[in-house]
């Protein structure tokens, strides 16, 4: 299968979302989850932050203001993506045009979901994050550049390194399909199963 190569540099307008503990219920409210496809989730993304109960855009929401309405990067509060495992949150963010979120910590399942969908999550210190939040708040300077190879973030005069585990970085850069890649190790999986014997061989009663 052809592998889609990702741009090693992610560049764009960054929007500040400084609230801590933004959970996946907030990123993708449950009323958008009743679906069997991955598509059509852009409007649901951050729906209750972006729109009021009548569906009108909330003017105070940063994602509705110029230039941040065009944001492709978010600078986020601590523990972003906590709560439910719903991958719909990541699908929706990608469909909204978000390519990266810079933060101090992400919930584990969200972090793994992001990797599978080409959403980069560079991890920085609180100090750097707060500096980047400040930078992103300034409408005239809001463009940030993230270099995956060198693990560097550049924002105006600011240059900072970020953390990202090697496997995630490799997967993002290659745009790899993990399922297909793992099947290259089918032999090792068979060997493991042979060693396992009857131990833990679950056979669910139908």
């Amino acid at each position, binding site marked *: *299968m052809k592998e889609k190569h990702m741009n090693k540099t992610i560049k764009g307008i960054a929007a500040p979302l400084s609230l*801590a503990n933004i959970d996946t219920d907030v990123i993708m409210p449950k009323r958008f989850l009743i679906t069997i496809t991955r598509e059509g989730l852009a409007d649901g993304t951050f729906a209750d932050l972006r729109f009021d*109960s009548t569906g009108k855009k909330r003017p105070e929401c940063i994602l509705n203001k110029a230039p941040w309405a065009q944001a492709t990067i978010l600078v986020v509060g601590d523990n972003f993506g906590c709560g439910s495992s719903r991958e719909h949150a990541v699908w929706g963010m990608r469909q909204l045009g978000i390519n990266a979120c810079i933060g101090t910590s992400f919930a584990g399942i969200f972090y793994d*979901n992001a990797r599978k969908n080409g959403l980069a999550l560079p991890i920085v210190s609180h100090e750097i994050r707060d500096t980047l939040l400040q930078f992103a708040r300034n409408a005239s300077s809001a463009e940030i550049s993230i270099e995956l190879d060198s693990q560097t973030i550049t924002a105006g005069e600011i240059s900072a390194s970020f953390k990202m585990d090697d496997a995630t970085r490799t997967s993002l850069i290659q745009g790899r399909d993990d399922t*297909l890649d*793992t099947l290259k190790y089918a032999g*090792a999986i068979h060997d493991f199963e042979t060693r396992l014997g009857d131990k*833990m061989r679950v056979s669910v009663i139908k």
Partner: protein
Amino acid sequence: MTKTLYDKLVDAHKVCDLPDGDMLIYVDFHIMNEYTSPQAFSGMESKGLKVWRPEAHLSVVDHVNATRSVEAPDAQSKLLIDNLEKNCITHEIAFYGLGDLRQGIEHIIVPEQGLVVPGMLIACGDSHTTTYGAFGALGFGIGTSEVEHVLATQTLRYKRMKTMRVTIEGDTTLGVTAKDIIMKVVQVVGAGGANGFAVEFAGSAIRSLGMAGRMTVCNMAVELGARAALIATDQITEAALKDHPHSGQFAFKGESWVSDPEAVFDEEFTISGTNIEPLITWGTSPDQSISITANVPSALDYVSPKAKMALERSLQYMGLTEGQSAQSIKIDTAFIGSCTNSRIEDLREAAKILEGRQVAKGVEAIVVPGSAMTRMKAEAEGLRGIFEAAGFEWRPEAGCSMCLAMNDDIAMDGERVASSTNRNFEGRQGRGARTHLMSPAMVAAAAVTGHLVDVRNFR
């Protein structure tokens, strides 16, 4: 070399190391529901792949189904339910659908069916899969792409977590439950405090819990960011493995799944069990909790402007004022259910409070047993009669229901719910809905008085 229980479990399931630094780990058992699996099946099919080991999976309907009857709440929900059944038929996977006496919330039915034993690795497209740590099994939630990965390879790509031990030493006092213990841990460690960690719970307060309580503790460990939760096995674990439909199927021979005595953890927390009081959440994150005898925080309690702002936002959403007493918070709805607290033991605790009492005027009270088997057991024990006599609505069908309100059990804008569930996020139980988390007995007590109240006054 000494090892933690977590490291023993990871080592026992490691298939091989991968060149990029990940490892492949083997998934003994995988559970699916109707809302996080559809795109996994279609993804697998679009790549021309087959299910690696169909008998190692179980599918169950629990998130979108109605609880008043087996009829789907709407056409779109029916599509999800029918789609799961169709996928299971195509791929020869066990399916426990609506009307099946084995159906219920996934994390309630798996132990009922005897499908979890110590030493297993269990994955599920649901964050509360940490529940299985109560059995000394490694359980964790995964996203839909990983569901596809497990279906097609029976493995996951995995990075070893750091380890944390939370010790709760000293017996809890009367009226304090497993729910209060885990809510206290979330309060102390913080909502993201265990991101990147596997957490083992230890100490006398944990050891003295039964399996239901241990499951409640491990279930909500994900609210502190833990990707896995564990409790060492003992006689209580072993006793819980007998007499289920799948009991004896696996070659588990009572091996002891515990951390070595000298094992070193990356982080340690110690909490006094004796000092834990019944807790309620006041805010919109599970770590925003206080004792039922305390007052809602005020801006004076915080130093940083960011924390003051977060407090203001939470209080505004929750419709509360700074410094107001917890017991002055009036409720509209009482909800007992969810994978955290809808087991028979939870229903018994709530029924003790409700016996001979009445739900306050104007309060809507609902109880959704966690599984068909739980419901039948509760009915046989006379619990249904107690709930109904008190004015609770007893729902005949099991499901996640108002915990995340994906079905038609939705709280209205501004509606205040005393809830035995696990998340008090903005909009979780409905757009604008206000959730207060607490133990099932505390929910029952709040239903009776019409406001949050100390359950210890009821004994």
